[in-house]
């Protein structure tokens, strides 16, 4: 017989395939977090100081928060392909998740900067600091304290949303799980593995974030 049954059982080589998917999830989440956070800090700061930027970027933030990530991924994929900006699924995922991350981070940064009491900023200025020194040594450290816990929450959302990058052809953990389910029909074992993987990342971090939130509030 020249053919093999499509329904092959799990083999040890599949562990390697899953490990690759795991690594891809980490790579995508890390890249999108980095890009999105840096862009979000700049955007959030600009939105705090400039009325024009605030009005001009409001639709960007509003739209990214009201359209499902799956649609954003598909749009990033097709738009970047049309414009000729490469064909790598990693890149599509980074752009879509990074854009979302920058929008939501900007809002956290803005809220945190606004939460710094105006008296602190005024006293810093009256001590002879210039605007940038005040931002760097007074506002940013204080805003960091308030913004850290919400930002961690956003990173967790991003990690969970990265499970959708499979729709643009990126083989992250969820997608590799699904591929193996289709082949082996070991549905529960593989699904439990995927659930455990995300849970083991997200649960400790969200516990720590809640702890942090309580500490900051006191």
């Amino acid at each position, binding site marked *: 017989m020249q053919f093999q049954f499509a329904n092959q059982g799990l083999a040890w080589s599949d562990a390697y395939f899953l490990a690759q998917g795991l690594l891809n999830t980490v790579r995508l989440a890390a890249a999108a977090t980095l890009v999105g956070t840096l862009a979000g800090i700049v955007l959030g700061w600009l939105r705090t100081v400039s009325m024009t930027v605030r009005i001009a970027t409001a639709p960007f933030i*509003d739209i990214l928060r009201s359209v*499902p990530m799956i649609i954003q991924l598909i*749009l990033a994929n097709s738009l970047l392909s049309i414009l000729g900006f490469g064909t790598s699924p990693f890149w599509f995922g980074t752009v879509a998740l990074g854009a979302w991350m920058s929008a939501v981070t900007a809002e956290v940064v803005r809220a945190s900067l606004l939460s710094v009491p105006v008296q602190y900023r005024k006293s810093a200025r009256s001590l002879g600091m210039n605007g940038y020194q005040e931002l760097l040594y007074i506002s940013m450290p204080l805003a960091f304290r308030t913004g850290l816990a919400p930002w961690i929450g956003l990173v*967790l959302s991003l990690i*969970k*949303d990265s499970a*959708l990058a499979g729709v643009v052809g990126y083989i992250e953990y969820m997608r590799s799980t699904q591929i193996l389910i289709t082949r082996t029909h070991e*549905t529960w074992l593989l699904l439990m593995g995927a*659930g455990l993987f995300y849970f083991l990342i997200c649960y400790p971090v969200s516990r720590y974030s809640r702890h942090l939130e309580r500490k900051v509030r006191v």
Partner: protein
Amino acid sequence: MFGMNGYQFYWSIVWDSLPLLLAGAWVTIQITILAFIVGTLIAMPMAVARQQGEGWAYRFSTWWVELSRNTPAVFQLYLFYFGLGAFHINIPSYAAVLISVSFNNAGYMTEIFRGGLNAIPRQQLSASRSLGMTSPQSFIHVIFPQMFKVIFLAYVTQGIWGMLNTSLGMLVGLQELSGATQYAQSASFRTFEFFLVTALIYYLIAKGLQFSSHLAFRLIYRS
């Protein structure tokens, strides 16, 4: 018509499929509202259980909350669709999406409600109990109406999150807005045009939900 990199945009084909997309949007709205109601009904007792801090009800709702908040929504959908399917319990994709989005909503709403319950003075409960109300009566007539007022914004945001999550229906072959778009574009592969229109429809649904819930809030609380 303008071209980018030789690409010609072609919108009329989307226009022709608009009835199909709108039918999908209607399914999206249905599941969103149903999952919002189911999530709320489950989250109310779970929030009370979470606040008690002990007992089997507390442990049950804590499991639910942590599981729904710390795993991807797509994992939760696969669990109900493929996971149950492996036990030969085959549920339609509509039900799978409704159940998984309700599951997710309930987990997040429980925590939102718990925050709201914490903001209400404990004496409110003992006062209504001493007026002769039973425990469920005091929660329904005294505690919850106040709680919803406190958590309203976060509650509506979660409802919109639930709406965004219904788009996962596309992955299990449900023809809600995303699935219908995926189907409609597969005849022409005008992916960008189709999904841009879909994004716009999602945006309008989100704004519509936001607006109508704010209106409802004003009517109910007259503020």
